[in-house]
């Protein structure tokens, strides 16, 4: 038995003795209703019904309260609060709220800065691509026509002309996700490798062949903290709350030992 538990045990014993000494009458079956409790009972009734209770009603309210208290105490005596999922969960919830509230309202600038540095990736603004393309439909010999169009463009300077494409010819500042959604994975992989301002192709997509002119790539970047301050603040607080609870559990859980039947068949 660790020293700590012995100390706890001794303190517990002391409290128990003091409790018996000072609160001997608690063991008797008195139900003491304080003035505050009475006031709050009556005003709760009034706010629900909209008028002060009459004499009979006051008697009823108090009787109900007393009955609840008696049942509650008897239930405690019988140990009905033990192993009750709802009570367990409610108490766990209460202490969680308590721990969440222990964090300071306003994080300091330093704390925010540090948090931002650590979680930078969450605020990353991804790269975008601007490009034009000519499309050759799968329905009519895409590969052959696209290759021929490209060839005569390169050799004779013939104007590039393709088929109509559902989303048009020009795309401005599209992210990787958008491009993959509109053209498919392979198209994006090809686009990524292209040289700026140079017609290239044919490249295959889910719909046919494309001759592409990549016009501009804006690299992805981490925005400065000022631009995303509001979001960072919210995320910081959310994380701090989770951390407060997690820290508390970590701190206290070393006191506990978990025992599970090693032979249990899952």
């Amino acid at each position, binding site marked *: 038995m660790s020293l700590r538990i012995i100390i706890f045990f001794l303190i517990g014993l002391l409290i128990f003795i003091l409790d018996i000494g000072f609160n001997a009458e608690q063991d008797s079956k008195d139900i003491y209703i304080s003035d505050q409790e009475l006031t709050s009972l009556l005003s709760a009734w009034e706010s629900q019904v909209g008028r002060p209770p009459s004499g009979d009603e006051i008697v009823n309210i108090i009787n109900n309260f007393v009955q609840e208290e008696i049942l509650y105490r008897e239930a405690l005596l019988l140990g009905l609060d033990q192993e009750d999922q*709802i009570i367990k969960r409610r108490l766990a919830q209460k202490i969680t709220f308590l721990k969440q509230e222990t964090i300071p309202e306003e994080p300091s600038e330093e704390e925010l800065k540090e948090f931002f540095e650590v979680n930078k990736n969450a605020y990353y603004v991804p790269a975008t691509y601007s490009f034009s393309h000519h499309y050759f439909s799968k329905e009519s010999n895409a590969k052959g026509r696209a290759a021929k169009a490209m060839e005569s463009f390169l050799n004779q300077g013939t104007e590039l002309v393709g088929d109509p494409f559902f989303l048009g010819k020009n795309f401005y500042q599209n992210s990787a996700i958008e491009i993959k959604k509109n053209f498919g994975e392979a198209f994006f992989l090809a686009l990524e490798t292209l040289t700026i301002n140079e017609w290239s192709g044919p490249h295959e997509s889910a*719909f046919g062949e494309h001759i592409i002119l990549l016009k501009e790539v804006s690299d992805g970047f981490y925005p400065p903290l000022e631009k995303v301050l509001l*979001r960072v603040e919210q995320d910081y607080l959310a994380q701090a709350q989770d951390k407060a609870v997690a820290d508390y559990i970590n701190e206290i859980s070393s006191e506990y030992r978990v025992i599970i039947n090693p032979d249990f068949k899952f």
Partner: protein
Amino acid sequence: MKISKSLIGLIVVSTIFLIYASGFYTNLQSNSALEIVDFSTEESLENKSIPSNPNRIPLYGDLHVHTKYSFDAYIFGVTATPYDAYKYAIGEGIKHPLGYEMKIKEPLDFYAVTDHGFYMGMIENYADTSSKMSKNEWTKPMHNLNRPENVTVESTGERANLFSSVLTQAIIKPYPWWHPKYLGAWLTNNIQLALQSFDYDVHKSAWADVANAAEEFNEPGKFTTFIGYEFTASTQVEGGNLHRNVIFNSSKAPIRPWTRIDSLNPEDLWTWMDALRDKGVDSLAMPHNSNGSNGQMFEVETFRGNAIDKEYAEKRMRNEPVVEMTQVKGTSDTHPLLSPDDEWADFEIMDKRVGSRPPTYSMPQGGYVRDAYLRGLTLEWKNQGNPYKFGLIGSSDTHTGAGAFDEDNYWSKTGVLDGTDMGRGSVPLTQDRIDQLSQYAIDYDQPISIKEIDGRTYANVGFDQWGASGLAVAWAEENTRESIFQAFKRKETFATTGTRMAVRFFAGYNMDSIDLTSEDMIKNAYAKGVTMGADLFGENNQTPQFLVWAQRDKLAAPLQRIQIIKGWVEDASGTPKEMIYDVACSDGLSVDPETNRCPDNGARVNINDCSISNDVGAGELKTIWTDPDFDPTIKAFYYVRVLENPTCRWSTWDAVKAGVSPRPDLHKTIQERAWSSPIWYIPESSNLDIIPL
């Protein structure tokens, strides 16, 4: 003397009463449903230029999504918040109540959380044992309902019972007539306040949370959200579904939703929307599940049974330009009884009244959009105006926050109830589940919800008529609220069954001069004609041409055919007529001019593993079509239906995944499809009003 004394007495008493009442409700004026709140949040990122395309791009979205704030979703075990719902739409996985991950194949362009307006947020509040409401005896069956260890398949019976009997009895509890809250409700035109089961603060904060989530996720140019809710009304006696989703065009929205507690009559909803519009807040209402309305969604008379007139028609069309015609609870294009000559009419038919207990048949007449278009023409023919000149969209109506759009990645919509294959009736039940369902029938005095088919026992719960559908698609210049909202108002929209196919549709008199292989085809089409959702006016008895173009979903099956569906009212007899023309076929096949049908392209599905023929079908189809039976003097509507090659239905996928044979009485395959909004042909006016005798 006596009279004046008692008069003074009366005045004094009533004045005291009024002061008392207004003192009780400190904020008398603010309780009006017309008070507007600006939910906009500070934009922290600088405004970037938004890419815009004058020829418009198709943007895919879902405008019908429920979260834990909906009274039924919470009962179904759903704890997903509006924030979770938006996360799902932009591509993050979220948890189904039963623990597995729900993830969309590709992110959507727009999304709107539309929780049920009435009792929004209240059931969660009843379940929370620390709330004021939970002190009421009748909330007990709901206490801690969604504690993690209770969100299980085994809780299905308890939840079904709460939904079908306990809830309705529990929540309609008005205060007695003399109660000050009753008076307050009357004074502020907010009947909800007269209900003991209603906490206005909780309700308002749930609504604010819905709005705040929309604001937080709205990112112009990338992803659009709408503040919205569902107006969940139904007809009193027959229980005909009159549900509508309402979305607002900006960050400004009313302080509370206008709900079925305010009125069951959709015309009152439009009055409220008109009043908001006068105050600068524009909105749309989108009817859905007309299939479960017992024919009352597209009635030929008003809610109160009066004749429809032009004023009604205008008011309806001003507020309801689009209809959600396909979703989880079935598709409302047409019904085999209404369109006996349409070989594709028997598609995802859900023939029960929505939420009916016991399940009750829903009359098809007046419940399907094609029939509604014909009714609209008939009403107009009788000079009553056309209240049914709407465009088409789809949406999911999911209650888990996450729309299930794919047959092979399906979780239906009611959380714990239909989140498993056995629960939705696609796979035979184990003995355990049979016992549970039988016990449930005994415990809660419910009809037996199992059925024997070919010696195997299935859950008989109606979910087998539901399906993996659908999406709303808007042709918009850019991905912003304003641009998408305008597309809905123009009706430049189409509906799909969850597939991301795309369809263009134009009509005009010079369309055949457009080169279908030109990169400028769409620019020319806009210049020379009108597009879906618009009117084409007659010109010197010319015959118009229609330009149709469809593109496949790159992750789904290839296209099989494009059809144009025409409807009109015969001039001499007043008989509504419809006709379906195949106009473009895949694989180089051509339409048989006798039957107006494409020949079979040979696409097949292997039911054992759901694989499909890879070598048939089209990536895109396009054509210019002329109506062979065109009569320039007759009003008509034309809309496009695009069909994919057949694929496995979700119920077949469930069976394949479980290693059992598919249920014999269900369709094993479906053809995913898209429908465009119609183009209406309006003849030159003859200056002759037809006066029906």
